[in-house]
């Protein structure tokens, strides 16, 4: 036989349980828009007979009420991993596509103001000179057009190097953010392991841990690995950046000096943990990796292509020019001069109007056939077209990849949101259920009260 007052205790347990349920619903509703929040669910269990009954004893109760067995944080570790992977790819591609699109707008092709147009004008001016080899106007025009072509080439070269400067600064900013986030994650890890030992609910810390882990993945492509004690280790390119409560420092080992200038070497990274420093050999992904790839491969390739076009143009024109004679009957001097390190940026016209060698005949005669030859010599147009085509294809492909990756990321995010997101209707229903249950439990109490009142105050009184 259970005790007389046991029903009161059962009602009390219901009151307690339902208050917890309402608290959790209210917590969920409060955090409906919080970044990285995973909804909680209350798991209740009924209290009944002891699971391991004592020998020879019988349990005669009807059940002892309810208790809160756990407050579950609704998440899926595998899904969280997938989210980190996809976000890392997306941020890599987005940074790349943005930088390429920015640079592309400086190319100005196809159009009337780009290098191709300047090149066509330059060619025409030679033929005009061929038509009028003695004319000062025609000679002046050749020089002016040559200068504007050199200007167009050096503007593009400047555009590339400006983008490289931007990327170096971006890289430094991103790397320092990696340091901050890694420290925060290590601190959160420490808090989690301490709290877990104390038996405190670590759900809110776990939310924070996942947000930081996701951010690190976006920045570096770092792989997060959950440990049995609830902490998260993050390794970048196979090297531990955060291990438990210690955070390493990601730094740019070569390629960029402290002041953001290039040091002539490709960009590489190292992770310092305490006194040990490990150079990263595998590719870093995320935003850091995107900047590094742009600085190591994409932008130098375009700069080299542009330099080849400028060098090709200058050498072809110079060779043809040297085969001719100027207005004073002298052999043509070098028409263009440039610094071999940076032909596109330093291309300059090195002759005066009288020194333009339009003639194939010596003796200062007014022959224009060499000008005609120079007007059609070589194929810098074709190599420039190939360069622009290649770059355009690269930009288009980067943008296409971003679109595909966005879809994939949205899909994965929404799969996680399905599991972890807060649905207000659901919470309202949970709240109402708890409210009704609470009211009913309170009712049970007052019924018990009146039953006991009858028993105690009215029974046996004449």
């Amino acid at each position: 036989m259970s005790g007389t007052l046991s029903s009161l205790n059962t009602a009390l347990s219901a009151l307690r349980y339902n208050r917890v349920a309402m608290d959790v619903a209210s917590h969920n509703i409060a955090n409906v828009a919080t970044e990285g929040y995973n909804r909680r669910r209350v798991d209740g269990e009924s209290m009944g007979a002891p699971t391991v009954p004592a020998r020879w004893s019988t349990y005669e109760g009807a059940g002892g009420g309810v208790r809160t067995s756990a407050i579950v944080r609704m998440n899926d570790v595998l899904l969280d991993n997938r989210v980190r992977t996809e976000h890392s790819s997306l941020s890599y591609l987005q940074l790349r596509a943005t930088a390429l699109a920015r640079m592309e707008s400086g190319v100005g092709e196809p159009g009337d103001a780009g290098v191709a147009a300047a090149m066509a004008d330059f060619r025409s001016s030679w033929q005009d000179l061929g038509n009028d080899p003695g004319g000062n106007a025609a000679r002046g025009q050749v020089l002016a057009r040559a200068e504007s072509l050199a200007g167009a080439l050096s503007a593009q070269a400047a555009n590339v190097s400006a983008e490289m400067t931007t990327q170096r600064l971006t890289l430094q900013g991103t790397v320092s953010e990696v340091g901050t986030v890694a420290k925060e994650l290590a601190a959160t890890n420490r808090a989690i392991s301490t709290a877990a030992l104390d038996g405190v609910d670590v759900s809110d810390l776990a939310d924070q841990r996942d947000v930081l882990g996701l951010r690190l993945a976006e920045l570096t492509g770092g792989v997060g690995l959950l440990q049995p004690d609830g902490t998260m280790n993050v390794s970048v390119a196979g090297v531990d950046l955060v291990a438990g409560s210690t955070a390493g420092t990601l730094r740019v080992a070569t390629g960029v000096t402290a002041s953001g200038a290039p040091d002539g070497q490709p960009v590489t990274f190292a992770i310092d943990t305490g006194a040990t420093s490990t150079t990263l050999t595998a590719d870093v992904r995320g935003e850091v990796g995107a900047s590094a790839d742009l600085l190591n491969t994409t932008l130098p390739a375009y700069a080299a292509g542009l330099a080849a076009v400028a060098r090709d143009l200058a050498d072809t024109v110079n060779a043809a020019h040297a085969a001719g004679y100027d207005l004073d009957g002298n052999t043509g001097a070098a028409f263009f001069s440039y610094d071999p390190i940076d032909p596109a940026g330093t291309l300059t016209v090195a002759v005066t109007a009288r020194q333009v060698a339009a003639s194939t005949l010596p003796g200062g005669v007014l022959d224009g056939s060499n000008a005609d030859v120079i007007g059609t010599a070589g194929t810098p147009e074709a190599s420039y077209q190939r360069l622009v085509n290649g770059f355009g294809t690269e930009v288009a492909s980067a943008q296409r990849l971003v679109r595909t990756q966005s879809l994939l990321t949205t899909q994965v995010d929404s799969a996680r949101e399905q599991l972890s997101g807060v649905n207000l209707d659901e919470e309202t229903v949970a709240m109402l259920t708890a409210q009704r249950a609470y009211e009913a439990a309170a009712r049970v109490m007052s019924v018990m009260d009146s039953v006991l009142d009858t028993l105690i105050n009215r029974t046996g009184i004449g």
Partner: protein
Amino acid sequence: MVMIRVTQNMVTGRSLTSLQAGLDRLAQTQEKLSTGKNLNRPSDSPTDATTSMKIRVQLAETQQHVRNAQNGLGWLDVTDSTLSGMADNLRRVSELALQGANASITGSTSTALATEVAQIREGLLAQANTTYLDRPIFGGVTAGTQAFDASGAYVGADAPVQRSVADGVKVRIDVSGTTVVGPNGDNLFDDLAALESALRLGDKAGIQAGIAAVTERQRAVSDAQAAVGASYNRADAAERKGQDALVTLRSALSEVEDTDLPKAMVDLQMHEVAYQAALASTARVMQPSLVDFLR
């Protein structure tokens, strides 16, 4: 995609994404309309961008060829009319020489004939020094202002003056002074000087020789004129072909680069409707919640 649970955040997120996508499509169509170009950067279509750049190179080349041909036609025009004038003068000389060869002509008449021949020689010398844009048309590539000096000796630099009128096609637009009047020491002006003195002296044999020489020169001039005519025809044909090619190239360029306006307008209309629908549906989906229906 199978939805097990839908949350308010998902609805909000997806609405935002689709609104963004709609606005992006609108902006792209609007860019095409406002710039009038389908190709605003190489990545819009790398292949078309290359085609467009190739067409632009061809366009510039063809424009230049047309300009070259027009320049050459001017030079050839002047050469042709100069040669006609010279032929007229030579005809007059041969008339005068025939008169002088007549046995009855003597004394003052003969002197008058000789004077006129001398005058015509001066005229021919001036014609042989005709310039086009400050360059003597029979002087080849000379940097000087004259093809023949006062004595009638050739002082030009004999080399062809050419114009490229199409890819790899060059037309010679000048006539060498020496082919028209003959080599130095034995040229038209020497013949006329000899004829003049023969007329002055009444040297009938000399006059006969002069008549033969002038006939020879007339032939040389008309040969030169024929050559000029042929060059003119080539340059003219090339110019017209170039002009035709320009029209074709421009329309090809427009085909590649320019916006198809009716299509872009229809696209704009469609994207606008889609965007408005997205806005309206978002406004309706985001408002209600169970809370509205509880009291």
